[in-house]
């Protein structure tokens, strides 16, 4: 996906902006969701399940905002996409591992 978008934006700066906007809107949303998952799982044992999820959700908008700003500040769109995907994968895998860990320990 990122490869494709990058190919298009090579021809015109408009495509680069379009690609970045997509990255900010959807990639940012994905990051907000995955980070809230991660925070929710991370704090699970400290503050109780519901509050942990809640805290994750409260932070999600700030994560979204930072991600969107960051997408428009990096040097090119491809980099933005790749880093967003990396961060997303990190959070999802992290959340998944934490889920396994809590299941084993409980």
């Amino acid at each position, binding site marked *: 996906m990122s490869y494709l978008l990058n190919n298009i934006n090579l021809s015109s700066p408009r495509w680069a902006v379009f690609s970045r906007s997509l990255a900010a809107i959807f990639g940012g949303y994905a990051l*907000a*969701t995955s980070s*809230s*998952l991660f925070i*929710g*799982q991370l704090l699970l044992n400290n*503050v*109780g*399940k*519901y*509050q942990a*999820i*809640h*805290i*994750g*959700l*409260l932070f*999600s*908008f700030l994560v*979204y*905002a930072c991600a*969107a*700003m960051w997408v*428009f*500040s990096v040097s090119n769109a491809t980099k933005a996409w790749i880093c967003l995907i990396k961060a997303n994968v990190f959070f999802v895998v992290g959340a998944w591992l934490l889920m396994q860990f809590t299941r084993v320990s409980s």
Partner: protein
Amino acid sequence: MKDNFRQSMKWFHTWVGLIVGWILFFMFLTGTLGYFYQEITRWMEPERPFIEHNISNEQLINIAQTYLKKNAQDVDEWDIDLPTARNQNLRVGWRHPPEAGKKRGRYESSVVDIATGEKVESRATGGGRLLYRMHYRLHYLSTKISYWIVGFCSMLMLLAVITGVVIHKKIFTDFFTFRAKKGLPGWLDIHNVLSVIALPFHFMITYSGLLFFLFTYMALSTNLQTNEDEYREMRKEIYPRTPHAQSTNQPAKMIDISVLYQQAKNSWQADELSTIEVFAANDSNAQVRFVRHETDITYNPNDEVLVNAITGEMITHTPREYTAAGIIHNGFFSLHEGQFAGPIARWIYFFTGLIGTAMIASGLILWTTKRKPQQMKKPNGPDFGYRLVEQLNIGTIVGLPIAIAMYFYANRLLPIDMADRVNWEANVMFISWALLLVYPAFRPANKAWHEQLQLAALVYIALPLVNILTTDKHLINSLLQQDWGLAAFDLTLLGVGCCFAFSAYKYKALTVDKKTSRQRVKQDKSVGNEKLLQLQRVSKGNG
């Protein structure tokens, strides 16, 4: 690298602000009016009697209870809203038992005339509630779609606020700087000042606005982590409610509420009562809850006094429990709505909301001012995009206030027994806004600004006059009766009208001045309030 970052953020700020600027302007203005929604509703229901001075709470409670006994006998959930500084009439409400297959029963309420003890028959109107609901429930769209649009706009607003702080180079050294200059530097100063002085408000209002629909926007995350029962439990933990008594179907005689009120009075040491709720009325389980004006942003258990209505004893209720995150969440809600605010704090909320509105307006005007010299040089005239922005600016920044005035006109002038009257009030508002959005397309920008400013002045100044002609609850009477809430509404209309008239005059003066000579028109100094500032800005930047 750092400068590069700032550059990209500057670009980002410009375009993020432009894309949703007009919707945000609409949201901010209608939301700001929402701080006075009760007062607006009161004005829009002129059949209600004037405020009654010198009447004790006990007397009011007795009138309300008599009315409820007569009109809501088979109902066991009552509430009574006492006259306050905001809503100056006695209001009673009751909830019918749920019909088959429904969770909650129908809710009915009426304003009671203190003199006669009868219901006041008001005209059908959306009132202030409909107006302020527009700021998140964009009138014509379906609930779900409007929540997502509002969420998208709020998210971009949050981004605009954060990037705005990033690109503002000298936030502290320029803290008080406002140079009343024409053109770009003046507009930039205005935009900066309006943003910086109310920065905590801007951030709070945007972030809390997003929190209102947290579980709609982030549904994916909660769905992944909870099942349906857990989700319901989680919501209960975040928004705890005090459970109330259920009826046992054993009739019993209640003590008069005004007698029970003594209990609440004793524990508050003052006459602070604002609402009374009765549960399981005329039942052996009957309870009365006295609620006073909020004294805490989240929750103060002492604001409620629960009394057993049969024995007259106070019931010690277990206070609601909030988690830390829940306190933050509900605290943001409360800050957003400002229900705790008294008269002065409410006016400050109102002005700060207007500052936010003006900030958006100045940002939009800044966009065109910056591009004006370049666009004017083009051989075929300005680009389509530039003209569109200019047109939307005129149609929204001046057009929307006029449209809101038309909403009030519709309330006074539409036939009282008209079918679907509530909807037509709103239709009139949106039709006039649409006309004002189209109108600038057929006029040169300068003329359009001036004409719409004049129109705005005219409609706002004429509104209290129309009020005099159509009702007996007009400015003169309300001043004579010392009904300040009602009088303040008419006075505010006049004030807003004068601001528009002043800015129209100033606009004309500056345009003529520019044409004939470089002679300086001295800036008028009598800048008293925020609205005036906003309007002056309109005149300055386009002069």
